[in-house]
């Protein structure tokens, strides 16, 4: 059984509308030293690691489903 953590983030060049609003809110709360906020997804997968292609498999899941290639990038780490 493997635990895989996937991090999906908005491409750096795209406007992160949520991040911008959250940054404004943090500023209002007095945290004016926060100079950037980007909000992405954090996905935990539990996978039965029966074959040896775990790495390729996860990569494919990300490309096909977990991330939107038009707007997002991803990375992941595998804990066995």
């Amino acid at each position: 059984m493997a635990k895989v953590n996937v991090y999906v983030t908005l491409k750096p060049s795209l406007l992160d509308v949520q991040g911008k609003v959250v940054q404004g809110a943090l500023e209002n709360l007095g945290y004016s030293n926060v100079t950037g906020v980007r909000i992405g997804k954090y996905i935990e997968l539990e996978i039965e690691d029966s074959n040896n292609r775990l790495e390729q498999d996860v990569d494919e899941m990300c490309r096909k489903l977990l991330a939107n290639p038009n707007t997002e990038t991803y990375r992941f780490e595998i804990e066995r």
Partner: protein
Amino acid sequence: MVVTTEPGSRTVYNTVPIPPEVYRPMSMSDDEYRKVVEVLGRHPTFTELGMYAVMWSEHCGYKYSRPVLRLFKKYREAIDGTGLENAGIIDIGDGLGIAMKMESHNHPSAVEPFQGAATGVGGILRDIFTMGARPIACLDSLRFGKLDIARNRYLFEHVIGGIAFYGNCVGVPTVGGEVYFEDCYTGNCLVNVMAVGLMRHEDVAYARASGPGNSVMLVGSRTGRDGIHGATFASVELTEESESRKSNVQVGDPFTEKCLIEATLEALKTGLIVGIQDMGAAGITCSTCETAAKAGTGMRIDVRKVPLRETGMTPYEIMLSESQERMLAIVRKGHEDEVAAVFKKWGLNAVVIGEVTNDGLVSVYDGDDLVAQVPAKSLAEEAPTYELETEEPEYLARVRDYDLSSIPEPSDYNEVLIKLLGAPTVASKEWVYQQYDHMVQTNTVILPGSDAAVLRIRGTKKAIALVTDCNGRYCYLDPYVGAQIAVAEAARNLACTGARPMGVTDCLNFGNPEKPEVFWQFKRAVEGMADACEFFEAPVVSGNVSFYNETPEMAVYPTPVVGMLGLIDDVDKRCTSGFKDEGDVIVLVSGWRANEASHQTYSDKPRRSEHREESPCDIESLGGSEYLNTIHGLAVGRPPILDIDREKRVHQAVLRAIDRRLLKSAHDCSDGGLAVAIAEGCILGNVGASISLLANCAPSAALFSETQSRIVVSLPAAKLGEMMEIIDDLQVEMTVLGKVGGDTLQVSVNDVPVINVKISEIESIWRGAIARKMEGA
């Protein structure tokens, strides 16, 4: 051309020819390049080249469609007169006007459906509130490939999601629209959004940069590298640059847009804004040159004053960026801070980026460097136009001459009806519109699901009705008739609610216009639409053209979508499409006698379409029908005959009957024909009906032909006499079909029972069809 510069600034202009390898990929022809050189009296700078390329494109400059669009009367008057405004305004009395416009976001949605559709909503809304109108409704006209293909389900799901995300957040109800599923849209989905705004006439704002010396302010979001033509980047100058410099998908921020709506309407009230223009395609380039050209002024701006989101942007990128939620406002000199304060209250930027001049030039500075200087009118109004060749497509003869008599008569009509009701194109669209907030602003008094949406106008007794319509298959079989039917069907849907047509906006979706066959379709469709709109006294006040909706494998059906506004004088008289009470009589109001035999001919003056001599009730009348499409997989024959004179009289009859409160329901016959219209009346009214048809034709034609100019109404038997008077007076036909009642729908043709279905059964098929498809069932 004289170059005027600020004292102390450096003039950057170009005397070196730009090679064709650079301008051709920007879709600029050699001739067009020569024309630019002629206008400028020198070779353009790279920034200038980009500005001309985008402003002279079909998308902004309408270089191919403009000559044809002159067929629309208001358009012609505007072009020859004071110029086109963002959206036309229709007078509804009481000092009130309705602004409306439709726009496509087909290509962005095909690449990135969620953001593409979302930014489509945002863009069209800005067209409306920059006129000083408060947006009160959106409608969406959508076309996808069949839902059996996973990619189409993905596109459909995310387009709806994007529209919902954006429209719900900005608080503008999405009250109507249409969705068709046809193979030809698999490679090219169509996403057309219509926005409607309400204003007092005296509050109208213009997209004009009047008054030299006034300040030019950029309002709203920061500018990034969104939507800059990717092709340009791939081939020029920036090749060594990193991936991140490529054009970006545009991301919509409905929250900012909502604030922009409120702030703009509030700022306009100050009277300090002399002109305002939204930023859509070609961003700052388009808004600066159009507002200057319209006012006969010029403008000097400094790109370094533009608030940026990304570092290292070039003047070219800043001028061409299509970042969302931005506007250009022309503000009275000395009052910039007051205007900025309104925007600031709503958390928005408003910065001065330049000023209005009187030299007729758009001068673009990068700090001290003059990087572009071009006559505003040359960019905005003098795009070269072309008369493209037309040629009747070859396929037409083949599909029109298809022998429909070879099609076997079905053995089980229940099954056919059920299949039709379960076809996603015919089925209920509640899977779609329940994802939209269609009630916010509390004006929606006929909700989506009836023939047209109706919104009351507060402070008056009036209501407006809104609808979009277009059957692409009809247009494929005959673009002239198809476009006329789109207009007629829109007006018919309005009539069913009790509204008379007031005006039209359109979105013309076609393939590659440089192909003579496609341009023929385009031209014929516009002719049909223009003729019909004139006949219905519903002028085309605004619109949009979307070409190149094709892939190497296929082109879309010609799809000229009509968005129509209607007016109801007394909101309490509005009418809906579901049957109401047991015992009511069901009547067909039509331009044709229900059992008219093959002697039917056109006595009226032919309205420029090719007419055929057959009766509307024969096998030929199934041409182009949903029946042939769903049951037999065919898109053949000729579209139904339209006689718009009869059509109009049918509308008048129903309108008069609604006005006299004779009718309990009215529902037009469209996709799926009479049988489907009656079944929908039952489902919506949650009640059965028994129907007896007489026909001199096969039952399939009697039940499923899409003969035009027909409306199914229900009324108490006691009102039949009064109804008859109206019918006689307007010289249309009415046929008593049967009665409302029970919990089944029973239909006989020439006394032979052909349909007997439970309402609860057809209801679940009709309501659940799209959901089941989406679950992959």
